[in-house]
């Protein structure tokens, strides 16, 4: 995977978030404060505008740039969380214009580490981690077991989607939804949903020849 591919994925994520803006906001209305889609769409729109300036950058610089842009434009909790995730992923890709499959896995691991650190959260609390952590495990197992990136990431996306379903069955303990306790049951987590969208988009772009 090279820097051009990364830019394509980022651009496609921006489009996906924009088209799912209302859906994400709707999910957030049910258990949060109804701004997840609006905030993320605002952030990724500004990332999209910034993309041409990233054209010749290495992958580390691109991801760091995306993270910085998200932190300064999204707001809410998702700004610092997604922003930190992209910045941490950028750290482990510093200077690279191409990523091996193992390095892609390491970048996702770093991103998840950033979210855990900033959000002081772990799996099982009805957050984006409930999609991202299973996705990482499935992706890593696939790559370690000799699958190619597309096949392994497809496993990851499947695991993330299952994670989103899982968030319907648990009570929120982090984020604004946590104030609802039992009333958060039955609702899927907006953050887990948006992070699954991002992985799906990455898979779609990688599937294109």
């Amino acid at each position: 995977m090279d820097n051009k591919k990364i830019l394509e994925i980022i651009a496609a994520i921006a489009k996906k978030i924009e088209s799912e803006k209302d859906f994400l906001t709707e999910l957030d209305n049910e258990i949060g404060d109804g701004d997840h889609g609006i905030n993320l769409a605002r952030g990724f729109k500004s990332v999209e505008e910034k993309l041409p300036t990233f054209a010749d950058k290495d992958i580390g610089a691109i991801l760091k740039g995306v993270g910085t842009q998200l932190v300064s434009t999204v707001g809410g909790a998702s700004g610092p969380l997604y922003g930190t995730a992209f910045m941490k992923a950028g750290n482990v890709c510093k200077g690279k214009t191409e990523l091996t499959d193992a390095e892609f896995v390491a970048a996702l691991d770093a991103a998840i580490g950033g979210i855990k650190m900033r959000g002081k959260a772990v799996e099982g609390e009805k957050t984006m981690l409930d999609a991202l952590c299973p996705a990482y495990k499935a992706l890593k197992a696939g790559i370690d077991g000799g699958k190619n990136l597309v096949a392994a990431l497809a496993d990851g996306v499947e695991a993330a989607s299952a994670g989103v379903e899982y968030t319907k069955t648990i009570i929120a303990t982090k984020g604004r939804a946590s104030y609802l306790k039992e009333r958060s049951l039955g609702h899927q987590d907006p953050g887990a949903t948006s992070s699954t969208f991002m992985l799906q988009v990455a898979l779609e772009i990688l599937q294109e020849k």
Partner: protein
Amino acid sequence: MKKLINSVEAVEEQMIQGLVKSAPNKLRKLECGNVVVRANKKVGKVALVSGGGSGHEPSHGGFVGKGMLDCAVAGAVFTSPTPDKIFEGIKAVATDAGVLCIVKNYTGDVLNFEMAIDMASDEDIKVDHVVVNDDVAVQDSLYTTGRRGVAGTVLVHKIAGAKAEEGASLEEVKAVAEKVIANVRTMGMAISPCTVPAAGKPGFELSEDEMEIGIGIHGEPGTHRDKIASADEIAKTLLDKILADIDYKGREVVVLVNGMGATPLMELYIINNFVQDYLAAAGVKVYDTMVGNYMTSIEMAGFSLTLLRLDDEIKKLYDAPANTPALVR
């Protein structure tokens, strides 16, 4: 959606511009964004910085001025401001005495302020923060990130602001802010929802005969829904929860009857009428009462009740002069 706005995108900035133009001798807006600071920077004292999503007017920009805040950073409606903007605010008002950030306990606010504080610390600015968590509707437990920060935050602004104005150290200002937080409790409710301009429709729905008890200040659902009751009965529900949380008996308190945005003063006074009698009967002595819109949720109809337990120090600081657009003493 029916609102007196020009465009959804311009809501926050035009609101801040309008606030600053209403008090040009007191306030100034930073070029970089919706950051309000005092027109004349006060040096030689700890600077207080607060902020949060817009939609809570007059919080927080209306409390910038002598005796209260030095800076308020406004995010998009109901959305925490971003770390870079908070950092600009901190930089603009920082003094050698240091900066204290007053943050409402909401995940977004806490995360963004923490990132901004990291950025300021990296530039050798002496900065600390307190997190206000006065809402008794949602209990602190293993399963929550703690209680929400709501209308009690205004009293933290007032009292910590007075302490800073006296020239107290950062440690002393933080200590008094923590003391207010330990002694202030709030609970709210709503009878009709609010509409975030960018969302275009109400964040929740309540039928004609329903109310939401324990609602947060973003229209986020509270503890439960119930059939609407009389003003006295509702006020009693909220007060009982507050009075059960810490011991107010025999103590002096400040009462804040806070409107959520669309509740007429007429109704707030009706509520206060009951609150005063009920507290007297419960053996709680009211030192002073504030009635009005202090921490709103756009056009939500409803109110919150806040009780602050006083001691000699808090009382003196509560009475100290303040000169801000939304509070003059």
